[in-house]
């Protein structure tokens, strides 16, 4: 980085400080309160994985209730009341309130404590600075603060399970007035109750995301290595860049809404409470005059961009691994970048498609239907480009690539089933049925989660210098893929037959779920294969967990660039030292120079200078390959 020469003149005293610090860092400063982006990335990663596991465990409990409603949960059923309180599962039988708590917390934990910390914060922290050739994030201390804000928020969320009355139970969407009146009254502490803690925890999570996102954007803008122009950025960096913008601009309105809901609960205001509410036969004593729809607007103003926060990092990871293992440049790099920017932009103006049933008129719903369909176009472009990238490749089927390959059709199913939802008239039938659950789980579970698994297997060697075991990786992959489909495919059928989400009895008491058979089973009976698949999938994660921890110490040692990749992170040592690069890297070419004709190796790294001979030879191929649409 040439600027360092000039920086030095101003910096000198500073640099000495820093140099001293490095050697004297104690264990705490090095591993716990570290400001090094790689350590923070790993902290985020472990936290995210842990919460994925927790979120999944909550869901496995719920799946018992859905398949065998009202029956006592064998074995652990006796234990759970000791953990979650006597009101949760008396005699091993789940109560409706506890079911609702589990559902709301599954959604919240998976999204805000599982995927966002892992996909955005962990990979963003660990990989982005390395990929852009930066020594660290721009604001290392803010980075640390952002992790610890997450930690506090997460602790509050977890604590909320153990207060009287249990955790929040109004869905991850916390629609008011339900959320505002739940967990109040007798037996509930005014502050230490599920919903209030959910709100307070959320404020910390939002703070964490905001600090992190600001840091990412600044880092990507300011710290790109010399020669790393915008159009030479790896696609992963682009996707993180757009994701960070979504967080910075979409989260604050939700924060405003959360503050208002908190006021409604703690100071008894009525931001979201209309006049004349009668709950349980008793009129509520509040000033009234608020609007329940205001909450929904502010929530979904974040809520929709948030779903792209869940998917864009996965797109980025998939793009890297796809190019690497097909030994080919990504097809249509420019249109990919363009598409991801368009998604980012449009995702702010589609939110009301979650509110079709709220009495929307024809003009506004026409607007939101149009934007919702428009936003599907860039997704189609991205997915098409990924598919076409494979053509003419030399495809290696290693573990990261397996997850990547599975990602594509799985995301395809999830995305395609978003299209009927985008038409409000079709959504009249599908709204809040299991069709919705299936739609988005296909995107986030076999989609995003597979992207995350792929990323973990792929960048593990960079973080540890060792590879995760291939065989056990495959043992992890195949059952997980099969189970995912056994879980979520039948949910489309359940949705089409009319079964609704958030049903504590799994549909047992409903005609729609019992009268019609589809493919040989009634809607309710489909719960059995689904639940069993979920539990088997739980078992299938054990090889992963063991492989993960075992490989840190005992995995096969590999060199700095085991996948023979091209981007800058592979020029750093594994694991990279403090400051990352031994010499400031310089980028001379695009991110995916695989299989350049006339080269000995089938990959050319970004920091390899362009030879004069090559310049004339590759001219035609250099840009036009990036066919735009």
């Amino acid at each position, binding site marked *: 980085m040439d600027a360092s020469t000039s920086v030095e003149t101003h910096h000198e005293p500073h640099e000495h400080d820093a140099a001293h610090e490095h050697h004297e860092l104690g264990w705490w400063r090095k591993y716990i309160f570290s400001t090094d982006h790689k350590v923070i990335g790993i902290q985020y990663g472990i936290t995210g994985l842990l919460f994925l596991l927790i979120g999944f465990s909550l869901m496995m409990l719920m799946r018992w209730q859905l398949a065998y409603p009202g029956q006592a949960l064998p074995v652990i059923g006796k234990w759970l009341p000791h953990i979650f309180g006597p009101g949760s599962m008396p005699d091993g039988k789940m109560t409706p309130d506890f079911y*609702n708590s589990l559902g709301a917390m599954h959604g919240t934990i998976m999204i805000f404590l599982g995927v966002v910390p892992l996909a955005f914060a962990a990979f963003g922290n660990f990989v982005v600075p390395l990929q852009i050739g930066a020594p660290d994030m721009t604001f290392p201390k803010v980075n640390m603060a952002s992790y610890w804000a997450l930690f506090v928020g997460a602790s509050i969320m977890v604590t909320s399970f153990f207060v009287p009355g249990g955790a929040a139970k109004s869905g991850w969407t916390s629609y008011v007035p339900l959320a505002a009146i739940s967990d109040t009254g007798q037996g509930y502490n005014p502050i230490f109750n599920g919903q209030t803690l959910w709100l307070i925890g959320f404020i910390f999570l939002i703070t964490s995301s905001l600090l992190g996102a600001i840091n990412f954007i600044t880092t990507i803008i300011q710290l790109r290595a010399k020669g790393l122009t915008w159009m030479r950025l790896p696609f992963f960096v682009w996707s993180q860049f757009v994701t960070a913008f979504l967080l910075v601009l979409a989260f604050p309105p939700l924060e405003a809404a959360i503050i208002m809901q908190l006021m409604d609960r703690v100071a008894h205001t009525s931001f979201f409470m209309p006049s004349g509410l009668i709950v349980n036969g008793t*009129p509520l004593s509040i000033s009234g005059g608020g609007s329940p729809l205001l909450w929904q607007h502010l929530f979904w103003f974040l809520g929709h961009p948030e779903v792209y926060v869940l998917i864009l990092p996965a797109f980025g990871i998939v793009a890297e691994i796809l190019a690497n293992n097909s030994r080919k440049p990504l097809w249509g790099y420019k249109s990919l970048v363009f598409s991801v920017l368009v998604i980012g932009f449009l995702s702010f103006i589609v939110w009301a498609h979650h509110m079709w049933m709220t009495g929307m008129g024809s003009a506004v719903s026409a607007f939101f239907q149009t934007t919702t369909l428009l936003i599907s176009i860039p997704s189609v472009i991205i997915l098409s480009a990924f*598919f076409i990238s494979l053509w003419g490749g030399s495809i290696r089927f290693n573990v990261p690539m397996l997850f990547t390959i599975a990602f594509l059709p799985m995301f395809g199913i999830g995305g395609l089933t978003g299209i009927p939802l985008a038409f409000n008239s079709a959504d009249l039938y599908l709204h809040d049925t299991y069709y919705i659950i299936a739609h988005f789980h296909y995107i986030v579970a076999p989609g995003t989660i597979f992207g995350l698994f792929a990323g973990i297997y792929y960048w593990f060697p960079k973080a540890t210098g060792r590879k995760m075991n291939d065989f056990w990786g495959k043992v992890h992959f195949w059952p997980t893929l099969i189970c995912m489909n056994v879980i979520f495919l039948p949910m489309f059928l359940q949705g089409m037959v009319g079964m609704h989400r958030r049903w504590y009895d799994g549909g047992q008491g409903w005609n729609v779920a019992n009268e019609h058979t589809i493919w040989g089973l009634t809607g309710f009976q489909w719960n059995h294969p689904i639940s069993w698949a979920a539990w088997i999938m739980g078992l299938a994660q054990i090889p992963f967990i063991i492989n993960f921890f075992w490989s840190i110490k005992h995995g096969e040692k590999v060199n700095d660039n085991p996948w023979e990749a091209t981007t800058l992170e592979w020029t750093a040592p594994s694991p990279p030292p403090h400051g990352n690069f031994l010499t400031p890297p310089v980028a001379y070419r695009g991110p995916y120079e695989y299989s350049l004709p006339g080269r000995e190796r089938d990959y050319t790294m970004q920091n390899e200078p362009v030879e004069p001979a090559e310049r004339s030879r590759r001219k035609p191929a250099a840009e036009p390959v990036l066919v735009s649409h």
Partner: protein
Amino acid sequence: MNSLALINEFLGQPPNASSHGYQIDHILEFCHWFMAALFFGWSAFFIFVLIRFRKRRQPTADHAGVRSGISTHLEFSVVLIEAVLLLGFAIPLWAKRVNQFPPGKEALVVHVVAQQFSFNYHLPGPDGQFGRRDVSFVTNANPLGLDPNDPAGKDDIVTTGELHVPVNRPVICELSSKDVIHDFFLPSMRIAGDAIPGLLIPIWFTPIKTGTDEVICGQLCGLGHYGMKGTLVVDTPQDYQAWLKERAELAGGTQGAASSQSPGAPKTENAPTQPQPSPGAPQQPKNKPAAPAPSPNPGG
């Protein structure tokens, strides 16, 4: 068109029983065919590519890759199909739902008032006039707070749980709620709408088959949400008149506030925040753009 219906049936959708429902099914069908075409088309390509270009078969990759613009055509056709579905079907359909309500005389108007965890129905009775409702009159026997002093309300019919409507006559349901947000979903009528406190949301449909349908609450509304169901009975006109008569007799006895057989749903949720003075009480929920209430309205 009927052959198209195959895919929905194949996916388990129960038959439609309303006059507009087939249109909704069609748009779903088109979507599903369209999705199937894209999915199987791309899948075929995908599987071929994975086999044809696996490393063993293709040891070195081709740097340039695909040069044809076929994908552009594909994307263009996706845009085209979506545009047709949107402009040709979805937008007109919705406009019909929300802008072209059948005239009040022709249609049967029902006020649906949701609460944790049941649906209450308020019908105007023989005089065709809805009685005034006010929060301050709400008691267990009078769940909707029907004003006993309002003559228009004397013959009103209030029921809980079961609603009868005559076949082949448009029904307008005005949805509102006493406590939290619910959703009034009639699967075989292919219609739904949220019941939101403080708002009044009208939906309409015309049943074309007699029979009994389940009413589903489609929005999480508390611990009894899973049990919040109702029944919609589509009667022949004769049966409907008989039901009305029976109801009216019941109503005559209790002065407007008719019986309320709670459907045995679980007990309602938590107590209100502070049980102090009575709340600001608006009368009927007002549709948003409606003119301000004529009388000063302290609560709201």
